[in-house]
């Protein structure tokens, strides 16, 4: 194939079969010493190719294929139809025409000038002729001379180009286009020239130090004569900045022009020096102004979305036309001006609102943006922590909201958990901050949260609770345990839990044994076996009582004279110390009941010597058979209700005083009992005069007309209005128990140490005691133990204690 095309002004570079062949032969011979240098030369030529291929894609300066040969032939298939010079079959008459040095140079000069002026070559001058000319000049004259001549030729041309636009008064865009045209022409030309002078590049240039390749020489000259003209540099850089600013302002710009010019600056190795600094400064100013303005104008979510948009845009700019080396500084600049400068204001203005409104998408964005700036997440985390503390405190601190406290705590925890896992990547520090904040605020109110959590659990474990499935209940209990974990006064919880558990067990109100056991094992897991041993003891008492009752009934049957006993008795025998303290009271009971009770007591003490049995009438309950004129009923009542109703078997009317003296029930309890019988839902008594409360002098009359749809009727006791009395008792109990535990701990430590300084004793106590305690309280207990001769002050050193054995 002998057809040669020299194309320019088109998108394609020259293709030449011979060049191709030479390149490939080098390529095939890896040991060729020319190879590496050769590649470099080819690489330069290659740039244009890659650029052409990439024009529709991204600007990419650094991914030049190391193999510069492969695509040299691309231009062939789509060679431009215009301005193509075809020289055919000229091999025949080229023989000695260019033998002389001067003639050779004349030919070469003619070709170079033709290329520079975008003209056709003479018809009878072929590429191979030109190679021969180059060879002649290298061998017959000197390659240095040839190189110098070529350089002069190139320099002259480049200098002349400056005139084309140095005085151009057109607008910046036109100017930029002119520079770009000049640059692209230069590249085309230098590539074609490079092809002709290939032998020079491969011989002389490679072998001589400090001589640039022809391509690099072209770049140097272009930089020296075009871009180093201050006017050109300034107008060019300013023009580029203007275009980028326009694009940032929302306009569409000719990105390929910007890309080509920036690539030019990079090729000339002045990108960083003349462009990057100015560009970054302009960026900083723009975003500094924009940040300040938008912080005023927009709310936080809008602002954050804008910042994200800006970051995307700038990243896009890097993909499309900026040099990738600018990326780090550019992004840092946006982050600094738009985020870091405003981080305090952003969180103060927006965080509470976002958290209040559970705006997960915005919170995720907030997190991802703050993770970009130094210390951003630390700051976000501490503000998150502060928010929980503030908001949480409002949930626990207000006594009017006690009714809903626990549910609100659960909801709040759910919400915050969700935010941490959805928006904050479940990051450890946020998880920790969440825990720390909950623990902090929940203990801002003494005792109450512990009490209410215990009551909440009671509500869920009680029969009749509507929590649908066991699984749901189980999940709920797990959540409760998380709250429980935060409570410092766990003994307060235990006391209230125990009180409610005792009611559930003794009144048969427990919804499910499994759920009870499950809750117990959760508590055990959380606080250790010591915490639950007494609670477990309560369950054990219930089991033991069943066994005792079986034995008791066996015993009764053996004593046949008692087989006619009219009622069925079962007794729960409680171990003091496991159960809450109950008020001891004696009441008047019908003689058969008293007798029955005595039989049991005797039976029990016969089995367990060394014990004392105390009956607890407040906890007893009965099922009554009642015959009303409207039909028989079965009444489920407390023992006190039963004792009152039994009086009416003999007389229809009793005054309050009479009932008091006949039952001996404590006044408040009796009034409450009467209220439940005469003022509640199922009124088996009538109160005269009618009113809601029981007053002195009231009379109570058997209600002959009592009727009810149901056969079995439960007469509810009037709920003590979460009696401050009962509550105080429980708190008092906790307090006493704490004293006892402090004493026990002190004795334990003294027994082990024998001699211990005051401060060490105090610090060991703080380690051992699992409830909040003040040093002053500890001091009091130490004094008390000294008074009781458990320990003494050292005679020589009053700050040290000795154990008294």
């Amino acid at each position, binding site marked *: 194939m002998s057809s040669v095309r020299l194309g320019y002004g088109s998108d394609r570079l020259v293709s030449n079969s011979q060049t191709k062949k030479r390149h490939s032969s080098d390529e095939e011979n890896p040991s060729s010493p020319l190879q590496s240098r050769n590649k470099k030369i080819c690489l330069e030529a290659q740039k244009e190719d890659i650029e052409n291929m990439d024009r529709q894609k991204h600007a990419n300066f650094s991914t030049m294929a190391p193999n510069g040969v492969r695509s040299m032939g691309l231009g062939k298939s789509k060679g431009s139809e215009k301005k193509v010079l075809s020289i055919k079959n000229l091999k025949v008459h080229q023989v000695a025409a260019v033998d002389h040095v001067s003639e050779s140079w004349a030919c070469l000069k003619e070709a170079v000038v033709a290329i520079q002026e975008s003209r056709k070559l003479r018809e009878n001058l072929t590429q191979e002729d030109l190679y021969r000319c180059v060879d002649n000049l290298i061998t017959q004259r000197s390659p240095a001379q040839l190189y110098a001549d070529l350089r002069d030729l190139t320099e002259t041309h480049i200098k002349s180009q400056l005139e084309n636009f140095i005085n151009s008064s057109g607008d910046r865009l036109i100017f930029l286009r002119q520079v770009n045209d000049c640059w692209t022409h230069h590249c085309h030309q230098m590539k074609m020239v490079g092809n002709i002078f290939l032998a020079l590049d491969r011989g002389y240039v490679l072998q001589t130090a400090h001589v640039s390749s022809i391509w690099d020489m072209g770049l140097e000259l272009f930089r020296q004569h075009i871009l180093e003209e201050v006017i050109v540099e300034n107008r060019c850089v300013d023009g580029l900045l203007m275009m980028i600013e326009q694009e940032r302002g929302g306009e569409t710009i000719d990105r390929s022009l910007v890309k080509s010019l920036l690539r030019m600056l990079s090729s000339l190795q002045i990108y960083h020096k003349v462009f990057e600094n100015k560009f970054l400064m302009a960026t900083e100013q723009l975003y500094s102004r924009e940040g300040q303005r938008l912080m005023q104008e927009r709310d936080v979510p809008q602002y954050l979305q804008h910042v994200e948009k800006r970051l995307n845009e700038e990243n896009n700019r890097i993909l499309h036309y900026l040099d990738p080396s600018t990326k780090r500084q550019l992004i840092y600049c946006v982050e600094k001006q738009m985020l870091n400068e405003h981080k305090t204001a952003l969180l103060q203005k927006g965080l509470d609102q976002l958290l209040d409104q559970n705006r997960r998408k915005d919170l995720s964005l907030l997190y991802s943006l703050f993770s970009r700036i130094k210390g951003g997440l630390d700051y976000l985390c501490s503000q998150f922590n502060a928010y929980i503390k503030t908001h949480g405190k409002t949930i626990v601190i207000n006594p009017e909201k006690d009714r809903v406290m626990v549910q609100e705590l659960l909801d709040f925890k759910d919400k915050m958990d969700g935010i941490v896992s959805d928006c904050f990547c479940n990051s450890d520090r946020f998880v920790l901050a969440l825990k720390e904040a909950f623990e902090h605020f929940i203990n801002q109110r003494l005792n109450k949260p512990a009490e209410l959590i215990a009551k909440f659990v009671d509500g869920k474990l009680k029969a009749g609770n509507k929590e649908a499935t066991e699984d749901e209940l189980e999940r709920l209990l797990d959540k409760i345990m998380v709250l429980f974990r935060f409570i410092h006064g766990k003994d307060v919880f235990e006391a209230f839990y125990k009180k409610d558990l005792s009611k559930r067990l*003794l009144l048969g109100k427990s919804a499910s044994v499994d759920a009870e056991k499950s809750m117990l094992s959760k508590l055990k897991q959380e606080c250790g*076996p*010591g915490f639950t*041993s*007494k609670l477990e*003891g309560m369950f054990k008492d219930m089991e033991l009582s069943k066994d005792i009752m079986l034995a008791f009934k066996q015993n009764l049957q053996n004593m046949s004279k008692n087989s006619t006993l*009219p*009622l*069925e*008795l*079962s*007794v*729960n*025998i*409680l*171990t*003091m*110390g*496991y*159960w809450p303290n*109950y008020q001891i009271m004696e009441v008047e009971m019908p003689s058969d*009941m008293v007798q*029955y*009770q005595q039989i*049991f*007591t005797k039976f*029990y003490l016969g089995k*367990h*010597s*060394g*014990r*004392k*049995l*105390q*009956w*607890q009438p407040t*906890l*007893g*309950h*009965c*099922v*009554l*058979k*009642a*015959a*009303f004129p409207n039909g028989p009923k*079965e009444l489920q009542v407390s*023992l006190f209700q*039963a004792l009152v*109703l*039994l009086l*009416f*078997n003999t007389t*229809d009317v009793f005054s309050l005083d009479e009932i008091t003296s006949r039952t001996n029930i404590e006044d408040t309890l009796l009034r409450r009992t009467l209220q439940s019988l005469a003022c509640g839902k199922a009124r088996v008594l009538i109160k005269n005069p009618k009113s809601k409360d029981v007053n002195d002098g009231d009379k109570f009359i*058997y209600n002959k007309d009592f009727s009810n749809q149901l056969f079995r009727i439960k007469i509810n006791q009037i709920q003590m209005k979460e009696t401050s009395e009962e509550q105080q008792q429980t708190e008092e109990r906790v307090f006493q128990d704490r004293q*006892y535990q402090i004493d*026990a701990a002190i*004795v*334990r430590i003294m027994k082990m140490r024998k001699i211990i300084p005051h401060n060490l004793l105090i610090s060991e106590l703080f380690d051992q005691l699992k409830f909040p305690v003040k040093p002053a309280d500890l001091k009091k207990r130490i004094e008390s133990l000294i008074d009781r001769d*458990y320990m003494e002050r050292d005679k020589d050193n009053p700050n040290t204690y000795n154990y008294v054995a």
Partner: protein
Amino acid sequence: MKIKIKSWTGVATWRWIANDDNCGICRMPFENCCSDCKLPGDDCPLVWGQCSHCFHIHCIMKWLQSQQLQQQCPMCRQEWKFKE
């Protein structure tokens, strides 16, 4: 009115009959267990001596083991014999 009790569920609490509030050996209240135990009641019962002093069973057993010569009540120094 005609009312009869069909069934009655009573509740009673039990405690040790002791001649003192505290165990003379471990000094813990009898309502609580000895220092080696976790739970009062059946798990840490009381025992009485013929001298009528009583202790946690774990306490007096430890005490007796530590006595080489004579088995004495730690309170009254009489010879220790379990009641019954």
